[in-house]
């Protein structure tokens, strides 16, 4: 199994890179002929990213964890029903009060698939059902390739210069060419390159992240040229932070209640909480590059970037808490194995173990401990 990242309680280093790239684009936006080159490069980067997504997606992982339909159904409903509903409600409530492109960005982020890597990592830290998380998050990502653009076409009524304002065959073509084709190519080549990709995740991560940074640089350059910072101020950023927190709070709260109502075991409840409340920056940024007019991509992905950091921070805190609870529960659920431990545990419940019985009790404790080990898989 791949090594899982540790929980991050501080600013995500990648976010610092993103801030640096946004700052660079603000100070030195690419213009003219160079801009066309960078745009072209960004398009290639998007295709490359989706090619890698496709190659990384393991159908076997999906098939292996597919049995837990109830859980996957709840995660799916959270990602593609609850999130969009919250997004639509917020946008409807704030229309006229905030920058329409930022609101579109907010709605856009609610239509995205769940993250794969961080959902799984946080589930593992929190001692949740990792196999189910792998399946749920992978499934969400796979479906998102098709569903997110469809939802964007259905719900995003923005002035984006042609793309994204209602359903258009142009965006279908863009999606097919830039997202689907490389994704499917990567996925069907997985039997040949999957092993290489799984083995070289460290080498490929800079490609992955570099592509995103390139798209962000291209998008923000176009946005700066169009005067983004004259339209967006610190107040807007603060508003985005508050709205992101609100969206997260509503979605997480509903997921906790849904897990309780559905009687999900703790391990599956954690999967619903983490997989169902995530939105993928890795999918969202390149998809925005493909779906929206270049001048608007910067503003569209800004809410996603803020939401992304907030979700990482909050999930890291929660996963750490769940881990401590699980460790404490396991510690209090540990059977005494030594004679001294057994005598102490017996004294605590008012029983004295006769000397003649101690070897038999120790042997029975060992048997119970074996069964406790079996129970925990």
């Amino acid at each position, binding site marked *: 199994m791949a090594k899982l990242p540790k929980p991050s309680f501080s600013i995500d280093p990648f976010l610092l890179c993103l801030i640096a790239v946004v700052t660079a684009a603000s100070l030195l936006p690419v213009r003219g002929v160079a801009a066309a080159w960078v745009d072209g490069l960004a398009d290639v980067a998007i295709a490359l990213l989706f090619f890698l997504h496709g190659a990384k997606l393991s159908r076997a992982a999906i098939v292996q964890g597919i049995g837990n339909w109830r859980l996957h159904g709840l995660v799916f409903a959270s990602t593609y029903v609850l999130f969009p509903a919250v997004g639509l409600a917020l946008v409807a409530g704030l229309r006229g009060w905030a920058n329409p492109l930022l609101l579109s960005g907010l709605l856009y982020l609610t239509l995205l698939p769940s993250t794969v890597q961080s959902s799984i990592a946080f589930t593992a830290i929190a001692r949740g059902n990792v196999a189910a998380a792998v399946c749920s998050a992978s499934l969400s990502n796979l479906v998102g390739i098709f569903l997110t653009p469809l939802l964007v076409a259905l719900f995003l009524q923005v002035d984006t210069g042609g793309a994204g304002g209602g359903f258009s065959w142009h965006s279908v073509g863009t999606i097919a060419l830039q997202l689907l084709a490389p994704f499917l190519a990567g996925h069907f080549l997985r039997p040949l390159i999957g092993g290489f990709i799984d083995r070289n995740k460290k080498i490929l991560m800079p490609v992955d992240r570099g592509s995103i940074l390139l798209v962000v640089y291209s998008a923000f350059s176009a946005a700066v040229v169009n005067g983004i910072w004259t339209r967006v101020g610190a107040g807007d950023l603060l508003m985005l932070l508050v709205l992101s927190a609100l969206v997260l709070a509503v979605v997480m709260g509903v997921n906790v209640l849904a897990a309780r109502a559905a009687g999900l075991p703790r391990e*599956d409840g954690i999967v619903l909480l983490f997989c169902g409340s995530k939105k993928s920056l890795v999918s969202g940024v390149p998809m925005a590059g493909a779906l929206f007019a270049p001048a608007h991509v910067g503003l569209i992905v800004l809410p996603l970037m803020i939401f992304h950091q907030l979700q990482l921070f909050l999930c890291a805190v929660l996963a750490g808490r769940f881990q401590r609870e699980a460790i404490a529960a396991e510690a*209090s659920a540990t*059977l005494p194995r030594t004679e001294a431990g057994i005598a102490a545990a*017996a004294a605590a*419940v008012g*029983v*004295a173990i006769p000397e003649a*019985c101690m070897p038999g009790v120790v042997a029975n404790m060992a048997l119970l401990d074996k069964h*406790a080990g079996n129970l925990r898989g």
Partner: protein
Amino acid sequence: VRSALDIAADVRAGRISAVQVAEATLAALARDDLVAVTRVLADRARQEAAAVDAVVAAGGDPGPLAGVPYGVKDLFDVAGLPTHAGSALYADALPATVDAEAIRRLRAAGAVLTCTLNMDEFAYGFATINATYGTTRNPHDRDRLAGGSSGGSAAIVAAGVLPFALGSDTNGSIRVPASLTGVYGLKPAHGSLPMAGVFPFADSFDDIGPFARSAADLKLVCEVLGGAAIDGLGLRVAILGGRFRDNADPAALAAMAEIAPDAPVIELPDIARARSAAFIITASEGGSFHRAALARDPMAFDPATRDRFLAGALVPRALYDEAQAFRAAFKARTAGTLEEYDVLLAPATPTTAPQIADPRILIDGALSPARADLGIHTQPISFLGLPALAVPLLRPGKLPLGLQLIGKPGGEGALFAFAGMLEETGVAGVSPPLGVLQGEMV
């Protein structure tokens, strides 16, 4: 050896008297050398039999079990007697003031209680090795265990002394001895038969049920105990695979393949985890129930159960809760699969009866105590609360071996119908043990 149905028909028709049947039974019980009987209730049996005869003489209906003699495992309350639960700790307990509800219902149906029967102390074991009352012998080979914990009930029915007897089943304590002694036994859906007046072991899984020598007798007794007719058909059959096949006697596997050659083999996930969770819950509930007695005088317990109860009393609450949480999730996860079938086939025991001199069995390639592991195939079914009917494979001249027919709660009718079909086709049935005491039933 006469069936309960035949005896009741003859008594109701006045062809024989209930007193005659009771006297013959009491004489046979007095000759018990299987260590199956703990107390012969001669006076009570004569009184109950006389009352049945009086009803017949007056032209009344004494009930569907008129004059049928039976015994109960030593953990049912019998009015006027202390309930021992197989333990010296309760030898001088206050006598029960009323009969257990199951006994009351049987009496109302005309059955005649004749004895109490041996068991593992407090029902904790699959062996019926009891320090106070002795080890119950298997009527098919007295050097072998009868199984437990309802070993006395199974052995006395297998020996042909009683047409039926009551036992209790927490993790397999009816099905295991039924398999090892070659009789029918039913563990009902959890909580479906009356538990009032039955000494508890582990509330989460405790149930009572009968042993009998035919599917029809077993059904009749269950109908009386449950107070309702049992009907149903078992058309959709599957064989339980995975862990149930890993430690199975080849004869059981061959029989299942013969019974249902086209049935799908289905696997329930995490059976080993389920069995472990059941083991932990049982140990914890049993240990908690006896904690006060363990604190007072642990040495008064049977050495065979004492250390197990002591260890069980120390199971942390958090581990118990974890096992119960797994149980809830396991039930939800398997519900869909189980809903698709009327009858699931599985072995009742991993092996035939082990030797008393060496009470160990082979589990996963290693020798393991029969007392703890004979129920490896029954425990996961109790864990789900499902009804299971143990049927003896008809194999005269060989040591008995049984299968479990497992159904849905309320689906006992399908199990009885299927057991009847197996009986008719000669696959299942009771083979008389050679050279054992037999009831001189008129």
